[in-house]
């Protein structure tokens, strides 16, 4: 993609930050954050991690039809180039499913917390310290 084809905000001092780079790095950051949070021990963080991860997946799916700017996805007489409509439909399906599943997992986590008195993913009773880091007795705790 040439620099001149980009909208103004993306052209900085002659060097373009390409859309590809922006999208790829955004997906990477979301995946990294999502996996980090999904590996934590408390259900709320795990749910947040799953949400971030699914955002990354949705962006990734969207990009699988190649990045095309300013083109319609549906047929038009006057137009020769299109954006691929299929990934958009796929992303829509994926978003709906993920949304439903996130709602379900939130309710499940809440129900589990109310019934077992613990929000640990293994259901263990682990004392919850709201401060991440060293506490008054010198021990380092992590949520």
């Amino acid at each position, binding site marked *: 993609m040439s620099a001149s084809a980009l909208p103004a905000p993306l052209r900085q001092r002659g060097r373009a930050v390409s859309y590809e780079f922006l999208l790829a790095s955004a997906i990477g950051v979301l995946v990294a954050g999502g996996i980090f949070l*999904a590996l934590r021990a408390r*259900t709320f963080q*795990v749910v947040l991690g*799953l949400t971030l*991860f*699914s955002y990354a*997946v949705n962006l*990734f*799916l969207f*990009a*699988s*039809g*190649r990045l095309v700017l300013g083109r319609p996805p549906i047929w038009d007489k006057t137009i020769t180039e299109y954006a691929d409509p*299929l*990934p958009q439909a*796929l992303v829509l*399906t*994926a978003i709906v*499913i993920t949304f*439903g*599943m996130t709602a*379900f*997992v939130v309710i*499940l*986590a809440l*129900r*589990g917390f109310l*019934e*077992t008195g613990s929000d640990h*993913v*293994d*259901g263990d009773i682990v004392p919850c310290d709201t401060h991440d880091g060293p506490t008054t007795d010198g021990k380092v705790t992590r949520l």
Partner: protein
Amino acid sequence: MSLAAHIPVLPIALPALAAPFALLALRRRRRTLALWLGFGSGLALLLTALALMARVSDGTILAYALGDWPAPFGIVLVVDRLAAMMLVLTASLALIALLHAVATRSDRKGWHFHPLFQFQLMGLNGAFLTGDLFNLFVFFEVLLIASYGLMLHGQGPARLKAGMQYVVVNLVGSSVFLIALGMLYALTGTLNMADMGLRVAAVPQADQGILRIAGLLLVSVFALKAAVAPLHLWLPRTYAVSTPAVAALFAIMTKVGVYAIIRVVPQVFGDGAGAAAWVPAPWLFPAALVSAVVGFAGVFAARSLSEQAAYAVIGSTGTLLIAVAGWTPESLGAALYYLAHSTLAGAALFLVADAAARRRGPFGDTASPGPAFAGRGIAAMLFMAAAIAATGLPPLSGFIGKLLILKSAAALPDWGWAWGVILGTTFIGVIGLARAGSAVFWKTVEGDVLAARARPADFAAPALALALLAGLSAGAGWASAYAGAAAAQVLDPARSAAVVLAEATP
């Protein structure tokens, strides 16, 4: 177009219709109506599946274009021998599980058992029928969402804890599935499995790395669903705490993962895939060996009968994949015969464990001696038969299945590992099940004989499962010939691709 042309869509449409009606019936507090809807749908599914099996048993491949959209653009349902076999298996298992749920009244622990059960069947049948990868993802989600509800059926802290892990693991799995699909679509420009199989060879050299990653990711997701080691850790706890009738139905859920591997690998990453041919194959064999060992070691070490049944499911999946990983028509045929057997045997173990647990009062199904209980003789006989089936001793079909696997594996280069692991794990499994069985049914501690609270109807479903296994043993000649023909059909994707892509209209 005659009505008969629409039979391939019935296995999805029937439960999809039965589920909302069952829900409406339950909303009006009419349990009996919902129950008969469930049984009616199950029987209709069995008849449909048998009709499809009769139609495709001569080698015909039926392609059904949904909405009449031609194949690479619309979604197709494909019925071949393998799909028809899985449909018959699902319908039989569903009737057994439903019978047990109704006989033990465990369907009354919540209001939504019957609708969820039907949605589960819809997801399973859809996954077996679809010829489109994204549609496979959607049906995986349908069956998973229903399974979350069924797994939590009956509730209680133990189920909620295990349910949380089960849901989270599967959500991550689904996300990885989507990533793999995105890569494959970006590289090949299609999601139809048959079409993708034709286009994979044309992927440029520079993109081969991404193609390999996509293939491996896809197979890892299927392996996660199939609970192949090291991705099996979610299974034992989930299955052991589920309502036993549900756990029996879940015996086929791991087989969905195996089915997806058998379906996708030869079709998309088969001989026609050029540089990426058989990419996932080298990983499958070691993973299968480890699963078989882990599963039967778990059977040996488990503390309760239901936990044992859960590990037996992992072990049988491992044994099955050892044969699948050979990718020859003989070994795949043996694997398909063993697949049908191991699904029913796993279900029988869960159901017998439940029937015993209901009679032992506070001892439940823990593998430790309790006081004598009424109905011990029948329960012990059924457990012994189920254990014989699960480990693969004669005379039940597990023996024939393992014999076929060993025979076909002898022609493979790694036959030493396959033989060693299958025979060794069988031995460990026999000892583990014999030990648990003698502790539960043979030894007794001092104490009052527990009065029979449970009804003899509890034994109906496990006995039915075992009767089917006996039928599978008696009809082994026909069944293994069918499985062999199905395997040959799966390993010849070009023919099925020709049918799917040419037959735009059903």
